[in-house]
């Protein structure tokens, strides 16, 4: 029997019992659909996080005070084990290393920013001129922090777009004074709206010279040093020399952690991919359930069609053709279910994308392919036993009764 005839014969038997066929296909659809939706969500989350990090640039090193624990994953800062402060002169020394394009020291804090009677809390970034390049910040108006020695506490500030809008509205802001904490700063620039970046919204930050921030927060130590490396290939070498330099500067104590953007990215990528795979796997279990359903229904069908099977054999169908016929039925149901599941899953992904526009929700191609393949394989696998039973049926016995 040709494959075409086998399929059309199988199809005929499926549409002869439309309700049965639709129910199994529906079970299959739910499995395929949930794999598609859940991987779409997982992949959306992964891409969202990766985009956040990628916007910081990939040849970036981040120096954090404190030693990374060898046992746990978290650097010392997170577990509160800072041993020695990072200082501005550490940052200046790093800047002079080979392969370093520029560095930016960073202090972060929260402060009240006010103009006249208008007042608002803002995230204060104490840094230097090079931060503009390192973080790919865009200026809407004016200038960024002035270049020059990092220990000069010039009373100037650069406002995020949202802060400017709230304090100045339609008024001109450049050249005006604002009060931050107990000091006055002159506004020299406005940063364009950029949205989320590394956990906080640039629109709601105010940048001031790092020395000014240290006076304001009354501290000598830095929160981070961001180091931009000349070329991506140099990142590992520069990481080593930064570690070596800071070790000698800190009395031979390796008490800082240097993380690379790539490593952070890779870690997040791994975690989120694993999560996506896990939810996809859980969803795939429902495909197994659908497979068991197929097996059960096919077993009943084989029992009901004994005389038809016997007849086919009497007419000269070898066992292999009979087996193929039943596998074809399972295959066609699975294809039907997979197609329905794709439509279901894509529609749900689309709806979710509308609901959460920030997440780039789209089912990854591999997941779609895997869901469909799993459906087909599960269908055929679970149909194997019934198909084998049909193929082995004793024709003489099957034909003796009605």
């Amino acid at each position, binding site marked *: *029997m*040709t494959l075409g*005839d086998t399929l059309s*014969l199988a199809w*005929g*038997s499926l549409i*002869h019992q439309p309700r049965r066929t639709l129910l199994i296909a529906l079970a299959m659809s739910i499995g395929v659909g949930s794999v598609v939706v859940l991987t779409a969500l997982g992949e959306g989350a992964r891409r969202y996080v990766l985009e956040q990090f990628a916007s910081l640039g990939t040849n970036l090193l981040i120096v954090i005070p404190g030693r990374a624990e060898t046992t746990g994953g978290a650097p010392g800062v997170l577990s509160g084990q800072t041993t020695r402060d990072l200082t501005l002169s550490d940052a200046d020394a790093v800047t002079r290393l080979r392969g370093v394009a520029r560095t930016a020291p960073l202090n972060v804090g929260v402060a009240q920013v006010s103009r006249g009677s208008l007042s608002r809390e803002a995230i204060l970034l104490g840094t230097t001129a090079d931060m503009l390049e390192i973080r790919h910040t865009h200026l809407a108006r004016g200038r960024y922090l002035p270049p020059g020695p990092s220990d000069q506490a010039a009373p100037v500030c650069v406002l995020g777009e949202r802060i400017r809008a709230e304090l100045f509205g339609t008024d001109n802001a450049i050249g005006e004074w604002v009060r931050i904490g107990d000091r006055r700063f002159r506004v020299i620039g406005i940063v364009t709206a950029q949205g989320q970046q590394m956990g906080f919204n640039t629109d709601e930050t105010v940048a001031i010279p790092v020395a000014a921030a240290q006076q304001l927060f009354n501290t000598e130590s830095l929160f981070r040093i961001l180091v931009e490396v000349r070329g991506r290939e140099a990142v590992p070498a520069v990481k080593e020399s930064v570690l070596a330099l800071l070790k000698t500067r800190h009395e031979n104590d390796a008490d800082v952690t240097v993380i690379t953007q790539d490593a952070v990215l890779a870690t997040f990528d791994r975690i989120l991919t694993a999560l996506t795979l896990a939810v996809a796997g859980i969803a795939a279990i429902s495909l197994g359930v659908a497979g068991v359903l197929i097996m059960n229904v096919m077993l009943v069908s084989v029992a009901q069609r004994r*005389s*038809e099977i*016997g*007849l*086919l*054999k*009497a*007419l*000269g*169908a*070898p*066992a*292999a*053709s009979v087996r193929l016929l039943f596998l074809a039925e399972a295959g066609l149901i699975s294809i039907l279910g997979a197609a329905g599941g794709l439509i279901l899953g894509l529609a749900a992904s689309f709806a979710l994308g509308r609901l959460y526009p920030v997440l780039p929700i789209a089912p990854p191609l591999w997941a779609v392919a895997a869901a469909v393949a799993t459906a087909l394989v599960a269908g055929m696998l679970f149909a194997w036993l019934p198909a084998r039973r049909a193929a082995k049926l004793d*024709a*003489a016995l099957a*034909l*003796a*009764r*009605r």
Partner: protein
Amino acid sequence: MIELDRITRGFQVGDQLVQALREVSLNIAAGEFVSIMGPSGSGKSTLLNLLGLLDRPNSGTYRLDGLDVTGLDEVAAATVRREKIGFVFQFFHLVPRLTAAGNVALPLLLAEVAPGERKKRVARLLADVGLSGRADHLPAQLSGGQLQRVAIARAMSMNPSILLADEPTGNLDRATGREVLALLEDLNQRGTTLIVVTHDQEIGARAGRRIVMEDGRVVTDKVS
């Protein structure tokens, strides 16, 4: 063309061995019309199944057209059935979801006959059994006699040299049974070897050769 040599077939039922055929030896020439009669349980169906390669003997040899087919494997046996043997059953065994034409086309499908050729042959076969107008009817829409005629058309679709019929009129009234038998006789006239198992004396008597079985043995074998 059919040569059976001391064919034995027994069935194990519980701890008891039921001998359905005991050393049956039988030669049937091409073109014969043979009727097989005998009491229930005498082994008629078992013999027919063996002749049709749906079953295998425990011992003895079966030669078909000079070829030993006793030990053929499953695939080869299926091929022989497809090409040389046609079956007609008491319960018709039409596939209920296929039309008359679809049922007749089944053996052609299995033999991978091209669709165009298939259509032509099915039309001719249905015309031969007088059912041209019923090609698109489902089995549920046909009478018993018509069902058996469709089954005969199906059995003849590969133009087999042997037609095996197990009580072909067993489910039909006398008049319809006669029509069906006339159709089978007509096929026999045209050269097909016809072997009919029946309980009907009238039908049995029409055969050129009448075999009677009892307890797994051929007890009479008369040629007129």
